[in-house]
């Protein structure tokens, strides 16, 4: 029982990442009708916001290391520690959460620039053209990051406070220790999902966007500039994806290719959830994350060796056979 609960928890943090990327993808598809293959790159750019902030705040001076006598060795001592002492150390320790403050405006800017500069020119073009241009954009962004930061993963640390484990089973009399940062990630992803749904459900802006998603022409006839609002939605989707990538860095050291790795799975999530369905994307994200984790259990793998590598695609095939529109897909979406 403990093992199953652990794997479910494990699936929830991975599912959180899938759900956030799929949520962004669905928002863009639902509003602008664009299949954005560059969305994984936004996840990766968010992660590199954390890397950049970390590099900036750990800018260091070379100081001679007297403990090494064989040769002249130097230690990197961050300026922040030299200037601010313990406060500097604390700031460096919290670099990942601090970089959230930088990532929100940066990702919003990147999203708006992407939409205004490139993607708007492809609204009326066939989906195949949209896929090609966004896929090309993803490759360009990847190569820029590769040129700037190299091809190798750059590990990021969670704050010391969250590097240990939390015993979730203490109340239930079970031994259910789970890494603290992974729980933080799950809570964070839930928070973002709730915030996005609340924004769409309870604000005037969200109401207009929802109306536009249902019937764009009628909203425009009412004199509302829906295009401008949809551009903002693209920016919001970029922020959601970027923050998902940023907070994932202590779990998986980021490299230039991480976006592409997640993108493929996230598209499967969107298809399983149902094209254009926001709740479907979120539900499918968590569901597939959990199923992927459960498939890694020894008991399962002893019956179906290698099942953990294909489970997501297997589920996608079954769902599409039984429910061709996905779990919560709406009639008419991508069916013309």
């Amino acid at each position, binding site marked *: 029982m*403990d*093992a199953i609960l*652990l*794997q479910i928890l*494990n699936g929830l943090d*991975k599912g959180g990442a899938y759900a956030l990327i799929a949520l962004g993808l669905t928002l863009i598809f639902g509003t602008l009708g664009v299949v954005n293959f560059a969305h994984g790159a936004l996840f990766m750019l968010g992660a590199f916001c954390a890397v950049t902030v970390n590099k900036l705040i750990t800018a260091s001076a070379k100081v001679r*290391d007297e*403990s*090494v006598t*064989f*040769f*002249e*060795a*130097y*230690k990197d001592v961050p300026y922040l520690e030299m200037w601010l002492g313990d406060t500097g150390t604390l700031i460096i320790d919290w670099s990942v959460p601090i970089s959230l403050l930088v990532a929100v405006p940066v990702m919003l800017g990147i999203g708006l620039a992407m939409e205004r500069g490139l993607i708007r020119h492809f609204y009326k073009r066939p989906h195949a053209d949209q896929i090609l241009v966004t896929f090309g954009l993803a490759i360009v962004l990847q190569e820029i990051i590769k040129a700037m930061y190299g*091809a*190798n*993963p750059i*590990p990021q640390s969670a704050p010391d406070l969250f*590097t*240990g*484990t939390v015993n979730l089973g203490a109340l239930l009399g079970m*031994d259910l*220790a*789970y*890494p603290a*940062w*992974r729980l933080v990630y799950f809570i964070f992803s839930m928070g973002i999902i709730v915030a996005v749904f609340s924004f769409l459900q309870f604000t005037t802006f969200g109401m207009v966007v929802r109306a536009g998603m249902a019937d764009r022409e009628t909203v425009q006839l009412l004199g509302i500039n829906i295009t401008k609002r949809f551009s903002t939605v693209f920016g919001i989707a970029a922020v959601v994806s970027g923050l998902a990538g940023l907070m994932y860095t202590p*779990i*998986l*050291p980021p490299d230039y290719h991480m976006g592409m790795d997640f993108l493929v799975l996230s598209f499967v999530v969107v298809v399983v959830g149902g094209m254009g369905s926001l709740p479907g994307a979120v539900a499918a994200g968590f569901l597939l994350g959990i199923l*992927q*984790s459960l498939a*890694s*259990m*020894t008991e399962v*793998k002893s019956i179906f060796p290698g099942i*953990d*590598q294909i489970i997501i695609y297997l589920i996608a095939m079954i769902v599409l056979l039984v429910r061709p529109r996905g779990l919560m897909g709406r009639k008419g979406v991508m069916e013309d």
Partner: protein
Amino acid sequence: MTDKKTSVSRRSFLKGSLAAGAALSAPALWIQGAYAGGHGFRNDPTNKATVTLGFNVPQTGAYADEGADELRAFKLAVKHLNGEGDGGMMQTMKPMNLKGNGILGKKVDFVTGDTQTKSDAARASAKRMIEKDGVIMFSGGSSSGVAIAVQALAQEMGTIFMAGLTHSNDTTGKDRRRYGFRHFFNAHMSGAALAPVLQAEYGSDRQVYHLTADYTWGWSQEKSIQDATAAQAKWGTVNAVRTPLGAGDFSQYITPVLNSGADVLVLNHYGKDMVNSLTQAIQFGLLDKQVNGKDFQIVVPLFSRLMAQGAGENIKGIIGSTGWNWSLQDAGSQAFTKSFGQEYGFPPSQAAHTCYCQTLLYADAVERAGTFDPVQVIKALEDHEFDGMGNGPSLYRGADHQVFKNVLVVRGNQNPSSQFDLLSVVDIVDRDKVTYSPDLYAGDLGPYKV
């Protein structure tokens, strides 16, 4: 209009066939000319002022850190061979036939390649070095899959490959090649060296869970550790799970360990994979657990200072084996560490050590053979006894091209005295204790002449 029949006479057919045959074989003849160079072996540098070596290392992928350090060592070795710098291990190696004037009086030049930790990319890169850059020898690592793939290419092309970091038994076992040589130790030696120490530290009758990189090195190490610990200390295997190379997030493989009944986790991972899997295993609280009435333990059979650096605090107290460590006090180790440290500002890793040694050993063999002819160089390396290179008296065994030397058992240092003092040496296991019969992992070296 008249019908004009075109007929081919026997004579014109034969003429045409001869001409076509000559035209088709021309490239082969040119290639053979390039191969022979008038002396019977590929890329003969006799008529050139320089000799080119190829350094094919992973600059990207899971083993990129090791690759970067290997490249540093290669460059340092070239510097020393050309008589620059302080000479490093050329002051201590025995026998020593190098004069600091290159190899056989020819200045040493080099080209580099990126294996990407992928066999196909490594083969393509090595092929380019041999065919386009004209290397007389190539070297590098750091993956056994890659080493085995390029070693086969070395045999096909008749160009010597001095393997860098490769630890699978297969490299000098079933996949051994006449043109491939390994200075680094292997998984069998790790098992033989580690088993007595593990028994002394953690006792007998332990239950082990293996997480294993899913390629030749992982399988080889898993089996060697299983066999050695079962024979030495009656350790059993609860489960052995294969993980993809470069998986990044190992959490889905670590969580099943918690309730498996195992009280030891053996991580058959290396490089960034090991850093990630160890870090995540500790994040999941494995070391805080008690199973079967015993403290849970993690063992990393192969690790290095670079990995210890990556894993930070998590490596402290973890036991493993290593080919060499910069803290060794013998003259060869100290000379190399000083030279490398002065050049780069930090001490070398075991990957750097093995690549540096391989370059010097090759150059020394050429000097002893008095020719770059690979057949003669191979014969000079086979059953060559040497010393003064950091691992005590060592033998390049002719039967499988494996070096037999002392192996270190190390532990992540609990109280490091400097930023580099990350591993403490628990035991230096004598070469005789890790030596095995060449028939244990049988293979065929192949012919000298290709």
